[in-house]
């Protein structure tokens, strides 16, 4: 008989400070953490995780709770360790005469709600590896991060590897190097989380939030190569069941569509003739969303000012007003899908912006094509993505789909386990089951359901022993020695 001691800590962020909830005020906490975006398949590209908790507290805490308030939950087991089990924001509140109930979801709620316009990112991996020294601030001239890195930063995230430098970050993120680098990628104010998932799907990766609240981009290839230090065996669970139900995800031949993007020469990208009246000392903000995203906007030297010909500004009597003191000044915010010009009347007479003519280098879609990988009668069409722009990328993705989805991958669920705080979704463990003849075989954790305020748990697992892993490939930036035999890539 194994005996372990369990404990828990629930914290609320009140006034910007994490504040512990008295243990005696917590009646029950339970929750789950699972890969959910593509639940029909155990290991799906573009998957994300849903991390949620629900809890019941004494009514006395009601006044301390608010919608979208940050909350975190830590559990301890003497046979394991103390680890964060959930970090997120409150999404639902409910009260009775005696108790209050809450539900909380992960940080993706905040990320999805943040609309981002990005500059055009040219031939850069969808995500770039974060490290203690990686340049993540887009305002840094040396910045060369991927679009997922950019999105995370703009949403208030900071690299987890540099957490010490950003103690007040809204959340932290950590990225692997993505395998695919689209020719042109940009964000144009859509659901940021959904766009990042599309990027992950196009590059054979997964995007998820871990229990510490860290949003991670991870290559699915990394699963099989991970070293397992934890195990789940016959003495750890009360029941186990295995289900194979890949549905439409399973196939033997995969076709991937691609649509090339190309940069055109400098040309007029916007010609706005809406008159905008400006009183002396006042400003007007003009938002231009060009028909096609742009790589570059034609500006005066320095890139912060438009050429004089771009803006036609005149007084009421028709006298043309020039840039500069006594005329008008302006600021410029250029993104791939949106240009914001703020014009200020620096003169003493009212004026009107009669016309805005912008020139730049747009990116347009070319003729679509497709490429297939695998063979056989079960053919599947990979969902088209704006980020699959080259035949070679489409070919890689089709090859990866054929590899990952060519096998109907079963899901194993084990129930009646003691909650082990250190276990995480995406972690590789060694699974054993005497009845099925499985002994210390690598499985990846797809879902953790914890309950009874950190006492019990159940897990969903997927076999990954047959998958290729990163160590079988040459990876740019790593050192190799003579005689190494590896694949060049997909």
């Amino acid at each position, binding site marked *: 008989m194994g005996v372990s001691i369990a404990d828990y800590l629930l914290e609320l962020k009140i006034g910007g400070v994490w504040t512990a909830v008295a243990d005696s005020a917590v009646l029950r906490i339970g929750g789950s953490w699972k890969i959910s975006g593509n639940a029909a398949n155990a290991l799906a590209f573009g998957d994300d995780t849903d991390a949620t908790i629900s809890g019941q507290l004494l009514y006395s805490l009601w006044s301390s709770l608010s919608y979208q308030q940050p909350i975190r939950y830590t559990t301890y087991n003497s046979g394991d360790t103390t680890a964060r089990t959930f970090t997120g924001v409150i999404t639902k509140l409910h009260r009775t005469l005696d108790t209050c109930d809450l539900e909380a979801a992960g940080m993706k709620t905040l990320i999805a709600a943040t609309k981002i316009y990005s500059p055009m990112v040219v031939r850069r991996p969808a995500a770039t590896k974060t490290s203690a020294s990686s340049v993540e601030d887009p305002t840094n001239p040396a910045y060369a991060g991927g679009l997922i890195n950019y999105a995370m930063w703009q949403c208030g995230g900071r690299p987890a590897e540099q957490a010490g430098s950003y103690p007040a970050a809204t959340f932290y993120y950590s990225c692997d190097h993505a395998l695919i680098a689209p020719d042109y990628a940009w964000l144009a104010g859509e659901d940021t989380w959904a766009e990042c998932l599309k990027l992950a799907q196009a590059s054979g990766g997964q995007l998820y939030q871990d229990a510490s609240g860290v949003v991670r981009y991870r290559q699915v290839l990394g699963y099989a190569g991970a070293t397992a230090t934890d195990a789940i065996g016959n003495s750890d669970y009360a029941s186990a069941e295995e289900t194979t139900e890949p549905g439409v995800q399973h196939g033997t031949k995969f076709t991937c569509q691609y649509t090339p993007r190309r940069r055109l020469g400098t040309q007029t990208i916007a010609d706005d003739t809406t008159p905008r009246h400006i009183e002396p000392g006042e400003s007007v903000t003009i938002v231009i969303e060009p028909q096609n995203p742009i790589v570059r906007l034609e500006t005066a030297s320095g890139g912060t000012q438009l050429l004089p010909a771009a803006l036609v500004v005149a007084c009421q009597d028709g006298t043309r007003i020039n840039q500069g003191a006594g005329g008008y000044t302006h600021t410029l915010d250029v993104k791939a899908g949106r240009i914001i010009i703020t014009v200020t009347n620096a003169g003493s007479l009212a004026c009107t912006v009669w016309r805005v003519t912008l020139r730049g280098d747009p990116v347009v879609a070319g003729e679509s094509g497709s490429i297939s990988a695998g063979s056989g009668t079960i053919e599947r069409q990979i969902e088209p993505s704006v980020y699959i722009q080259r035949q070679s990328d489409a070919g890689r993705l089709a090859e990866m789909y054929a590899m990952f989805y060519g096998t109907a991958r079963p899901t194993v669920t084990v129930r009646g*386990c003691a909650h082990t705080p250190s276990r995480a979704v995406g972690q590789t463990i060694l699974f054993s089951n005497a009845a099925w003849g499985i002994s210390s075989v690598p499985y990846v954790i797809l879902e953790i359901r914890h309950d009874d305020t950190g*006492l019990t748990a159940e897990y969903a697992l997927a076999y990954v022993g047959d998958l290729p892993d990163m160590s079988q490939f040459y990876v740019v930036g790593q050192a190799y020695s003579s005689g190494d035999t590896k694949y060049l890539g997909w």
Partner: protein
Amino acid sequence: MSYLIINGTTYSGLPNGTGNQSAWQPTGYVPKIEKIGTTLVAADGTHNRVERASPKRAWKIDWDGCNNATRLALATLAALGSSFSMTDFDGATYTCFIDDPFEPSWAFNDLSGASFWACAITVRQV
């Protein structure tokens, strides 16, 4: 000899008139240590016990036939809306509360006509 001390009252009285006649000694006393946790029995029979750090205690205490003053003291105790201290027969003191309803039942009258009561309380550590 130790006595139960509940909410400052020492339950030391005996029917022979000795001790605190407003709080007689009980005739039944069952202490219980309640562990907080769960036991998970694995498929191979292994018992996995997950335990909270602190167990909680409870005491079932009863009187076969206490005097009226003792019944009134117990009624007051059971009606308390806040926690109170209790020192058990081992001399350890705990913060406690009574959740259950107090339901004394008449036992008998003596020759003088005084009533005696059967009472029971369950005191729980909070």
